[in-house]
């Protein structure tokens, strides 16, 4: 079961902090992060990569990005 992080309406570093907290909690090997701006999308992807997680999917809905990351 993938963990969900809803970081919509939040600006950095909050989306990154929330994502890293979930990675650290290690309760899931897949995390779905929702953000609503391009800068947060870039930052979440960069942070996930730096922790050895890979970006599985990024889908766009309206002005929102749904990023799926998985432990490599």
């Amino acid at each position: 079961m993938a963990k969900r992080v809803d970081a919509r309406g939040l600006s950095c570093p909050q989306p990154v902090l929330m994502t890293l907290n979930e990675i650290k909690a290690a309760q899931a090997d897949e995390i779905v992060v929702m953000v609503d701006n391009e800068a947060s999308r870039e930052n979440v992807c960069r942070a996930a990569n730096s922790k050895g997680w890979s970006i599985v999917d990024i889908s766009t809905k309206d002005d929102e990005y749904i990023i799926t990351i998985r432990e490599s």
Partner: protein
Amino acid sequence: MKGLKNIFAGPWGIIGVGMAIGVFAPLLQKWGNPGNMGVCVACFERDIAGAIGLHRAEVVQYIRPEIIGFVFGSLASAYLFREFRPRLGSAPIVRFALGVFAMIGALVFLGCPWRAALRLAGGDGNAILGLAGLVAGVWIGTLFLRGGYNLGRSQPTHHTAGWMLPLFMAGLLALLLAFPAIPGEAKNGVLFYSLKGPGAMYAPLPVSLAVGLLIGFLAQRSRFCTMGAIRDFVLFRQMHLMSGFLALIATAFLVNMAVGQFHPGFSGQPVAHTQHLWNFAGMMLSGLAFCLAGGCPGRQLFLAGEGDGDAAIFVMGMIVGAGISHNFGLASSPAGVGPYGIQAVVTGLLVCLFIGFTMRKRIG
């Protein structure tokens, strides 16, 4: 477009942007801007506050086209890449207060983080104290961030709201064109001008505006942020934004050397004082306020250009803060800190700590 997007988000993108700023800021000094002040967001917003009479410090009154350019460069980039997203509602009054105190701290040091970098690159040793204070302030801010500090979520809003700060900037440009400087006159129409001091030193309007537009465009693309550079390194050991900030300092140093603007030393530096403790403490207050507000003063302008109404409120807080600083004798001068500067820094730190400790509600 997609490729261009990725270039700027990558390591060479941010380094390239830092280098571009590092080239143009010292050149703006060569072309007329004050010493080690090619670009200073705090100083320039303070000059704008003076030009429209929010304070009456006669030596710092000029509508700086660079600031207008920053906002419109970012706006153009945001529209071009479909990133203009009008939003607001994330604790605006708190952001206003943070903007006020960020400016008060910056004017005790005499510069924002951008100018601290340019002062260092120009050989001003006092900048070391300022940068150390900036790091200390941002570090305190990261402790709050780790503890759950946040300003809450913003909400999408009308395009009109996102356009408010760009329109304010357009109004300033219109005033500058309608009432240009007249040699030897301290006032034209509604605008105040400086006859001497840093406010009387400026590059030609088209040059300032063009450089501002270019930097605004590039910085929106790359998310360039001087506070974020330090914050991300402290929080995540991430060097992405830091590499841009360091590239700015290194490039500005080389350009200063090339054009004969590097003058190492502590005393006699342009628009600077040598009270080390207050250079440190002023910038510490600023760094903490920027960290709690989520961006350096430049980044706040670029965010405002993307339609972020909360960042716009922070900008207005800084402009009002400049008025308060000079009207109340809080701002420093080359002679040293102002008569009430020290009390203001202490007050500002207490206000920031209060905000940091109390706004820790979990995000729903």
